[in-house]
């Protein structure tokens, strides 16, 4: 009984650490595509053209938003998997 609780505590903190790791990676992507590509390095990226778009401008007005959507849906998929792995799903 005591062991069960200990195991559960252990697996809970492992679950939480795994969750934080996923969050960290995804937030880096979120930050990079919007704040770095769309704002900080926009001038440099604007030297590259993609069709009729300057790349930095495209990230700021289109690309970042597409990436945001992908980030969320990837997170949904990854967390559903993680919940099952750690047996904490509903």
């Amino acid at each position, binding site marked *: 009984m005591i062991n069960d609780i200990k195991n559960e505590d252990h697996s809970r903190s492992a679950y939480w650490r795994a969750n934080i790791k996923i969050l960290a990676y995804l937030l880096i992507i979120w930050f990079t595509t*919007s704040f770095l590509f769309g*704002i900080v390095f926009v001038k440099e990226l604007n030297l590259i053209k993609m069709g009729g778009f300057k790349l930095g401008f495209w990230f700021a007005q289109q690309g970042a938003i597409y990436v945001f959507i992908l980030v969320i849906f990837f997170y*949904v998929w990854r967390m559903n998997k993680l919940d099952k792995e750690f047996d904490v799903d509903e």
Partner: protein
Amino acid sequence: MDILTWTYIIVGLTFVLYIFIAIKTRASSTKEFYIAGGGVSPIANGIATAADWMSAASFISMAGLISFMGYDGSVYLMGWTGGYVLLALLLAPYLRKFGKYTVPDFVGDRYYSQTARLVAVVAAIFISFTYVAGQMRGVGIVFSRFLEVDINTGVVIGMIIVVFYAVLGGMKGITYTQVAQYCVLIFAYMVPAIFISLQLTGNPIPQLGFGGTLDDGTYLLDKVDGLLTELGFTAYTSGSKEMIDVFFITAALMVGTAGLPHVIVRFFTVPKVKDARKSAGYALLFIAILYTTAPAVGAFGIYNMITNINDKKIDSLPAWVQNWQKTGLIKIEDKNLDGRILYQNDKLKNELTIDKDIMVLANPEIAGLPNWVVALVAAGGLAAALSTAAGLLLVISTAISRDLLKNALAPNISEKKELLFARFSAIFAVIVAGYFGVNPPGFVAEVVAFAFGLAAASFFPIIIMGIFSKRMNKEGAIAGMIVGLLFTLGYLIYFKFLNPTLNNKDNWWFGISPEGIGTLGMVLNFLVSIAISIFTPAPPKHIQDLVEEIRIPRGATSAVIH
């Protein structure tokens, strides 16, 4: 049939639809009134969130705003979408697991303090009221523009409709009404955009036409850059704001989005934790359809304005220009009396003034679409304004009936009485909002934008720390919220109301405008609350257990035995 007749028919039909839905889905318990019974499917909640989120300003004004700001307009595009990533990853799943009805509920319980709850209630009411006053004005403007009634009559008609379905339906009613409103508004937005894109670039998808070529083979954006530089403006694809300011404004809008009570509460309405995550994804997807189209519409709009009006003879303008001149949204004044219109960055020489709203409103006529499409745009604008107003009013009424009455003043009140009181608070909130809609204080439009900064500086940090730190205690949270709010409010009031003449980048701290200061307020909130919490006692054991509990998706049935 003429435009006005079509408008009455289409707007009338959509109103009948909204009211029909509200009657069908009316709330019969407090749980249904506050969070739609917690049984909304993630897709429906995503659609409703999108409608709730996109206001009359998003629908009518944003594309035009971007067409005059060019690259600088990106702050709104990234700022009002990026917050959903924060919501989905950092807030929604945990708040759903927490399982209560409001943001002050969470703050009060997590920080085991009535003071913290009270500060949160005041902040929620203040943020929502400033936001909703602007919305009611928006409802009035849309009505007056399309139905040719007085703005105040428009506000009153809007109030009656909103009272009807918000009071009767509560969260459950407005959720399903918002689903219908989203369909109306997105259809109304996309049809003209698709035709304009086809007309200019031959590509039916505006997001691609945006980067497409014109008849003469040049890229649209290169052409617009060229036209604007020739007339003395900054090139469309490069902005004039400082980088640090763009960075801070974008961050304030993103974080503010994730801290707005009327957005957060939507994620309480789905059945499971995983639905809350998914729902945020759907919400962003449905928002992105409009938000990725808007910058294209903006670029098409500025191109059409310049090529159709600049340097053209005044007596041979296209019919749509003459039509919109009558409304005052396009103003022409031949200063040098040469019979031609000159569009110039130089204010003394410029002869053309365009209201930003024209970029969306005139689209159907520019694309040569039939009258019923113009009427559809009217219905879309109203759908956008009403859905946002209803969502905000519900937050206010919930804050009054649940957070103040049930949780603070009269904890023993019966469910039936609480529901009745919730309905009365909704009526009260509509009347106050309507009053501000009819008599807008001069600063409302300004303050709406600041609601984001205030939400960023108050709610976001303490909710995040409430979830991600077990050590964060009530002392830290209360101090953080108060410092964040006061700092942001102080900076705003100083530059916007006390010393508007000093409001320029030479005087701003680090070059950050009042619009972006919420980001700094948020950082301060984090720093102050962490510093204070280190020197004050850790939260009690049952609170630390609560934090453990909300981190795990599985429901209360499998809770650990302590």
